[in-house]
């Protein structure tokens, strides 16, 4: 572990920005919320902050673009292509524990298994992540209910923790270690007590998260109760106000569903991949053969079961990191934690 003061941290980012596009969290004046912004020039934007908690946007858009071309056909090379070695990487600063963990979950779907999505993998490999501790949490944050910590433990290249007038910094990958060793003059050994004050700050955030979420059940133990509640009428009630906007899935760092569609471009054709949402009616509808989830409550329910029952079975882990974005984004006020509480009280009966 090393210490880097704020001035040197900016120097480090400036240096790294020569190798790719730099993105940092910037505080929005009116709301105080953090948004991911691209740094075009130095000095760093006023309002840049790696304190507080997660940004409004997730990291998934760096690896799985909202919309992207995945094939142009016909082509002489057929399904072989050369990856462009020269494309710049993304340096993403201030990623929180819940977000780096979410990326690792999506990797399991898009990279692992018999087929890999080469475009996702390339973009993922080009991502250089500088993760950060949460120094606060939002009302909707519930990472601790998932047994997670509000500081990153893996899945990053570098991780920083705010202390004194700078950061404790740790490498989590070979690339991260290289950056530290190549820029030795920017770092110093941590002073006595810095690690302790980091741990105290962390404990404070955990205490706040636990207090905020004390009325909600342990989310890691929801799979069984959900199975019991599969046919329960509570889902009609929970979904009554949903307007099927898909905001909850679009904003979710672990939601990876997409759709392929084709367009005509002169003599050629283009295949486009676009984010999609299981919350909208057309998602799984078939020709004349009905829809496996025809009712609104079937679709609202599906998000919960997919993340908390199906994906643990097929991909080994709950696909929710407790970031709380779906709660903030929902205009119907659906709060996953409250739904779990209602499920628990139903199945306890």
């Amino acid at each position, binding site marked *: 572990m090393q210490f880097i003061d704020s001035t040197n941290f900016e120097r480090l980012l400036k240096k790294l920005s020569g190798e790719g596009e730099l993105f940092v969290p910037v505080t929005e004046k009116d709301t105080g919320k953090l948004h991911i912004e691209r740094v075009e020039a130095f000095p760093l934007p006023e309002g840049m902050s790696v304190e507080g908690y997660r940004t409004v946007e997730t990291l998934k858009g760096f690896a799985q673009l909202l919309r992207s071309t995945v*094939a142009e056909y016909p082509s002489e090379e057929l399904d072989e292509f050369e990856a462009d070695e020269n494309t710049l990487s993304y340096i993403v600063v201030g990623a929180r524990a819940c977000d780096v963990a979410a990326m690792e979950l999506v990797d399991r779907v898009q990279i692992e298994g018999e*087929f890999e999505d080469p475009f996702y993998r390339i973009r993922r490999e080009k991502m250089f992540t500088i993760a950060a501790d949460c120094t606060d949490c939002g009302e909707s944050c519930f990472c601790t209910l998932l047994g997670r910590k509000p500081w990153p433990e893996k899945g990053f290249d570098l991780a920083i923790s705010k202390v004194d007038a700078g950061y404790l910094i740790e490498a989590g990958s070979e690339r991260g270690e290289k950056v530290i060793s190549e820029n030795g003059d920017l770092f110093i050994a941590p002073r006595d007590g810095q690690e302790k004050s980091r741990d105290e700050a962390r404990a404070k955030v955990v205490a706040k998260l636990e207090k905020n979420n004390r009325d909600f059940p342990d989310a890691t133990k929801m799979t069984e109760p959900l199975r019991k509640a599969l046919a329960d009428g509570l889902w009609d009630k929970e979904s009554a106000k949903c307007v099927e906007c898909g905001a909850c899935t679009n904003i979710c760092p672990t939601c*990876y569903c997409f759709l392929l569609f084709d367009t005509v471009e002169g003599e050629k054709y283009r295949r486009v991949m676009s984010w999609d949402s299981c919350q909208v009616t057309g998602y799984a509808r078939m*020709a004349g053969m009905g829809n*496996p989830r025809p009712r609104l409550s079937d679709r609202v329910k599906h998000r919960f079961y997919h993340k908390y029952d*199906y*994906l643990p079975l097929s991909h080994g882990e709950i696909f929710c990191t407790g970031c709380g974005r779906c709660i903030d984004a929902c205009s119907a006020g659906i709060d996953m934690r409250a739904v779990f509480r209602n499920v628990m009280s139903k199945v306890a009966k």
Partner: protein
Amino acid sequence: MKNPYYPIDTVVEDIITETPTIKTFVLKPVRPVKFRAGQFMQLTVPGLGEAPFTPSSDPNITERMEISILKTGKVTNALHELGPGAKVGLRGPFGKGYPLEKLVGKDVLVVGGGVGLAPMRALLYALFDDPSKYRKIVIRFGAREPAELSFRRQYDEWRALAGNISLKTTIDVPHPDWSGHVGLVTTLLEPDKLEGIDIVDSYALSCGPEIMLKFVTLKLLEIGYKPPQIYLSMNRKMSCGMGKCGRCNVGHYYLCVDGPDMCYDKIKHVPNVFG
């Protein structure tokens, strides 16, 4: 690097009209495509999009592939408009295919209806490779009317292949051109109509419209099949074919990866399993 989203350039060599609504497309991809019976392909109409289909041809033949297609919507209507020489695209194969290893030494019951006969034909070709590997091969096909029974021209040839093969057909309601059995395909599944199949040592495989799958399953259970002995070709909307787009789940299974033929035992708990 391999791009799994690219549709391999493919030419439509021939088109065979099977029924008023089903055509078989003989396709020649620029490079051979190896598939197992029951695996499926994504077929592209350039610029319009793709749809999933299970080849109906012999899996031993890789230079050409036949796909039998029911006209039902955007992509399939466009396919039915094509003529020989048209250019299309293929991705795949995807999915697991039929559990052929499990069938060796067993009585095999094959139940198909409507366009479901298409995937079943690839299964039959695989079984007919060496019919003696199976104790009995009992095939039961149904359609609404005689004209809707695909591949009729081949039935007698199949019956003559080996002594352990039985093929019976039925149509839903009486028709002037039909002197055979009348009734839903489930009426051919009465125990006395199954050539003395040893149900305890048998597997049943079925493909057809969801409503048919539902009643076939109920019938099979009634005559003594246990859920682990029943395989159903399930149908869901698909896009990627690779377990990535999230669309085709039945419970925690992605049909495009774990299916499309699913052991009933694995999915019987899923609500709306038959849509």
